[in-house]
């Protein structure tokens, strides 16, 4: 059996239909406890006080914002190289989720930044690259809507995705590349010496897994909708031609 079998829309619909309840169940079982643990059962932090509770929504959203673009890059490359329609539709389906995650990261970052840094916004390397990533998400979604031919739209958005990947990488590593700005470095290192204290880290990891599974659930739902929408347009066209 090859992974490319799942590029067949019928096979994808069958497999995703079977998978969805399980992924949804896993989402509820990780996201709800992760967020409840983070909000209600974590102590005040020495440096951040009670604002440490923002980490449980800010960091998972920011992590996903970057990784969703990476996923879109991979699926766009699959489209550009192998011309599998499901991969192009998966990239299209992922974009609004990534856009919302980037927006959440920007809003919660601004709200958190005000009491910690004394400002809502600073043209700091990480913040600026995140804002540009948000604009790339909007541009990517607009480009899909602006082009009528779906294959041409998939080609052009695929190229846009390649260009935007520079900013996805910058968003992740900006704090290291420039070694300046307000935003701190790693929160999530697997090295226990580097990452935040376990009492905050454990619920954070659970929240990130929950956000990740929520993304998979929404991605499956939205990709199924895109496949149905593509079939609907094809049938309507066939009817008009008859």
């Amino acid at each position, binding site marked *: 059996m090859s992974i490319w079998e799942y590029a067949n829309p019928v096979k994808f619909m069958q497999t995703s239909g079977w998978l969805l309840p399980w992924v949804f169940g896993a989402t509820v079982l990780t996201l709800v406890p992760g967020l409840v643990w983070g909000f209600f059962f974590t102590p005040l932090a020495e440096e951040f006080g009670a604002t440490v509770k923002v980490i449980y929504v800010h960091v998972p959203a920011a992590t996903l914002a970057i990784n969703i673009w990476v996923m879109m890059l991979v699926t766009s490359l699959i489209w550009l190289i192998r011309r599998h329609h499901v991969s192009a539709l998966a990239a299209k389906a992922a974009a609004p989720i990534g856009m919302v995650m980037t927006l*959440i990261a920007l809003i919660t970052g601004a709200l958190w930044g005000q009491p910690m840094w004394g400002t809502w916004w600073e043209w700091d390397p990480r913040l600026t690259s995140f804002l540009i990533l948000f604009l790339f998400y909007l541009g990517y979604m607009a480009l899909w809507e602006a082009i009528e031919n779906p294959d041409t739209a998939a080609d052009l958005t695929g190229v846009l995705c390649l260009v935007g990947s520079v900013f996805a990488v910058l968003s992740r590593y900006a704090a290291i590349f420039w070694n300046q700005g307000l935003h701190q470095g790693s929160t999530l290192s697997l090295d226990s010496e580097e990452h935040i204290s376990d009492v905050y880290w454990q619920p954070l990891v659970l929240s990130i897994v929950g956000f990740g599974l929520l993304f998979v659930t929404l991605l499956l*739902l939205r990709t199924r909708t895109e496949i149905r929408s593509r079939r609907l347009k094809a049938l309507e066209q066939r009817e008009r031609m008859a």
Partner: protein
Amino acid sequence: MIPDLGKYTVTILGSWGATLALLAALIVLTLIRGAQVKRALEAQEKRMKKNG
């Protein structure tokens, strides 16, 4: 029930409120569009079947 957030109440509840509201909107819009497209496709397939 809500832990004492002190002077950061607005920051924390604002962040969580915005996050949950945006996620809820994303989920609801995903489900609504999914149901609309599914219904429209079923109706189209039915119509084409009927018309041969």
